[in-house]
């Protein structure tokens, strides 16, 4: 009996050792796997087909597979410059724009890139007009024509001086192979995606992972890594754990301020901070809209008083631990034409005395009671703290009695200015130009529905769109900022930075941190 038991024990031990040796073998031990960059993100993907998305998470995927006609960045080079088009210019009147295309470019399947593909890409984006798509950004495009295999002409409905900036966005200018993509419907995200970009999408597992291998036909410099894997996470704390444990090599979108502060202390990773272009602002209903909702912001003096009290520095330091910067204009700092209009009119720091004076002058009785709305998760979990600081600053002045209310994004965004008199919003630009920080908010037809409609602003917007020189356009943008600060239907208060966190063996991160917020994985090495 005893001998039998010993034999069993011995056999069991040998088996256990064999299993342990087999299992300890690396799943994929090739050196190539070691050069594949693994990125984590909390962003989501909608439709990878460029005609079907208008969100940052999907654009990140598209930038790896497709090219635009023109590009902005990296770094400080924000002026549109050649990508698939070597030259683009207006033919006389800003209504017609001609582009000369790069020769010798091939798609990832070997097909040649020509003007037919460009016309096809724009036409299908407009024809499909997908609910999640970006066709709203090219509503001014009347038609696209070709003139030979390497020339494209865009015919606009109205003059648009920023048409080249639009071509740097994902708005229909992500060029697809006309032989592969259907003309009137989207290509499924799990079907082959064919572009001229530096990578090929090897596989896409919705909500889990997107895997990219290097495109052997890519016309530009070879990527500095052997491929990219983007891992999708539901929340930043899980992503942070994965990063510190080395399960992923880097992550850049999006960490909470607390996570970032903690990561800065970690010895296994490095936090990189670059210029950003995202902003946060407070929207206030004006005029009849405000009266209808019973909020006092219909009066200019009330809005100015709130502007005098906005606690930008406290929000930046206490809530965001210095990871955002105070902002004094709706146009992001660092962009051509930016001026600190709010600083000029309302000062760099809060002033209770000035707020009181402006209300007294307008014979407004205080304290004024109203509700401010915010959304607790869409812009990050710090929104609650952010608005607690705004509430504290306003109430501490004794001029206001503010209560806070919140609603999740899907319900929050549904009605905006028509049901919420004073509310939080954020903005991330479609293209990095001052115009994209003015036109969505101030001229007639803006999406806020807060009742703001200034004839002077409408006139300036039209003038800016038709401006014949950059100098003239920037001058108008400055005028728009001053007028916006004077009328103050919106109060900007912070601007973000592009932040990436990477393990120490990842190189090239700083080269891609800029206001375009594009993570150019092809510049990163491991």
């Amino acid at each position, binding site marked *: 009996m005893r001998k039998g038991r010993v034999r069993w024990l011995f056999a069991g031990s040998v088996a256990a050792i064999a299993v342990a040796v087999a299992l300890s073998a690396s799943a994929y031990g090739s050196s190539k796997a070691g050069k594949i960059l693994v990125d984590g993100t909390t962003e989501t993907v909608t439709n990878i087909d460029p005609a079907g998305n208008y969100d940052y998470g999907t654009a990140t995927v598209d930038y790896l597979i497709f090219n635009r006609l023109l590009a902005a960045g990296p770094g400080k080079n924000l002026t549109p410059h050649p990508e698939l088009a070597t030259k683009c210019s207006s033919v006389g009147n800003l209504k017609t724009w001609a582009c000369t295309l790069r020769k010798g470019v091939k798609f990832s399947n070997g097909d040649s890139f020509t003007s037919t593909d460009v016309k096809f890409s724009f036409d299908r984006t407009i024809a499909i007009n997908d609910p999640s798509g970006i066709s709203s950004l090219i509503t001014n495009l009347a038609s696209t024509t070709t003139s030979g295999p390497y020339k494209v002409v865009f015919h606009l409905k109205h003059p648009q001086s920023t048409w080249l900036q639009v071509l740097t966005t994902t708005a229909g200018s992500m060029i697809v192979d006309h032989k592969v993509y259907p003309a009137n419907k989207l290509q499924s995200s799990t079907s082959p995606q064919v572009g001229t970009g530096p990578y090929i999408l090897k596989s896409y597992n919705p909500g889990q992972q997107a895997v990219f291998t290097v495109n052997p036909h890519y016309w530009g410099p070879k990527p500095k890594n052997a491929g990219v894997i983007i891992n999708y996470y539901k929340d930043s704390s899980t992503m942070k754990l994965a990063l510190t444990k080395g399960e992923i090599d880097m992550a850049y979108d999006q960490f909470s301020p607390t996570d970032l502060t903690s990561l800065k202390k970690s010895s296994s990773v490095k936090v990189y901070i670059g210029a950003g272009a995202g902003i946060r602002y407070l929207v206030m209903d004006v005029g009849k809209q405000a009266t209808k909702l019973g909020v006092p912001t219909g009066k200019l003096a009330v809005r100015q008083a709130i502007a005098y009290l906005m606690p930008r520095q406290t929000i930046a330091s206490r809530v965001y631990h210095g990871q955002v910067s105070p902002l004094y204009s709706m146009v992001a700092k660092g962009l051509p034409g930016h001026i600190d209009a709010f600083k000029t009119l309302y000062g760099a720091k809060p002033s209770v005395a000035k707020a009181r004076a402006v209300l007294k002058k307008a014979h407004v009785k205080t304290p004024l009671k109203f509700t401010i709305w915010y959304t607790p998760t869409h812009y990050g979990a710090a929104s609650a703290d952010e608005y607690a600081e705004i509430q504290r600053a306003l109430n501490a002045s004794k001029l206001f009695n503010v209560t806070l209310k919140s609603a999740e994004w*899907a319900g929050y965004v*549904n009605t905006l200015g028509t049901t919420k008199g004073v509310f939080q919003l954020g*903005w991330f630009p479609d293209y990095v130009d001052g115009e994209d920080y003015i036109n969505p908010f101030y001229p007639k037809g803006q999406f806020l529905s807060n009742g703001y409609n200034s004839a002077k602003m409408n006139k300036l917007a039209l003038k800016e769109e038709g401006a014949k020189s950059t100098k003239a356009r920037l001058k108008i943008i400055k005028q728009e900022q001053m007028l916006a600060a004077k009328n103050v239907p919106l109060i900007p208060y912070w601007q973000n930075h592009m932040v990436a966190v990477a393990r120490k063996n990842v190189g090239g991160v700083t080269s891609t941190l800029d206001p375009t917020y594009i993570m150019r994985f092809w510049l990163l090495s491991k």
Partner: protein
Amino acid sequence: MTGTSLKTYALTRLALVVPMVLILLTFVFLLMRVAPGNPIAAALGGHVPPSVIQRISHRLGYDKPIYTQYGDYLWGVLHGNLGRTITDRRAVSSIIVENGGATLELTVAASFVAMVVGLVVGLLAGRFRDTWIDVSGRLFGIVAYAMPVFFLGFLAQLLFGIWLGWLPTSNQASPITQAFLPVHSHILFIDAIWAHNWGALWDVVKHLILPATTLGIVIGGVFIRLVRINVIRSLKDDYVEAARARGIRERSVVYRYAFRNALVPVVTVVGLQLALLLGGAILTEETFNWPGIGSTLVSYLAERDYAGVQGIVVVFALVVVVASLLIDFVNAFIDPRIRY
């Protein structure tokens, strides 16, 4: 006589499935429509004018009368078309297959852990009644059942993932394994065996340990108490007294006789706990970034994706209903007293 009754019982129960699922479907449909917001506003709001959102919503029929939308949806479901999600255009059926595999992997592993924990602790507690083993076992069962699964998950990540560094803290497998393992069944455990990739198999198992153990312990808390009670009851039965009187060793009396009989009602409860398991799986998937159907449901809920939420809830309901039905049939077969 018995056969006819069983047949009638089976048909009656099958017939009841239809109204049960219809009621749930209707309830979910109405809840989604009543909740503020719609998928178009959620996707494009804050970026385009309300007129654009209204135009797109009209194009997709979201401004139609609610009974019309309901009718269209029911018509599709009756023809086996669960539709496509609005946000990312995925066929709901493909979500069930692709993400369902991950949930199946998690729930099967968690069930295994729950059974082991429940049976072992419950047996010991019942066997050594009113001793410190019993008290510890019962306390463990109560704490396990009462503790929120996500909290236990966070603790497990902290202890085993960060402080000890033994196990990964999220996902189904390492990124490289997941990227390069050929997909056949959408269950990575099976796919790794299929590919004869033992390194990948170990990687998958390592990633499965924390989430399965977390969920398994919480579910196991239910079984501990049930097994304990049934073991105590069995140990008082006449046949156990008879076995003892015949001089059979106490060890054999407990494990061979009493315990086996104590398992019969436990098997029934296992099936009924499926709903609890699926609900717990949603929270576990969220905590461990597990790409299952539960976490996918949460994402679609946040985006007000009607098709995604309705489709997944229907499948959940069908799974629970069918499982309950099978358990009822087994019980009816075993115990003729169970009839309508």
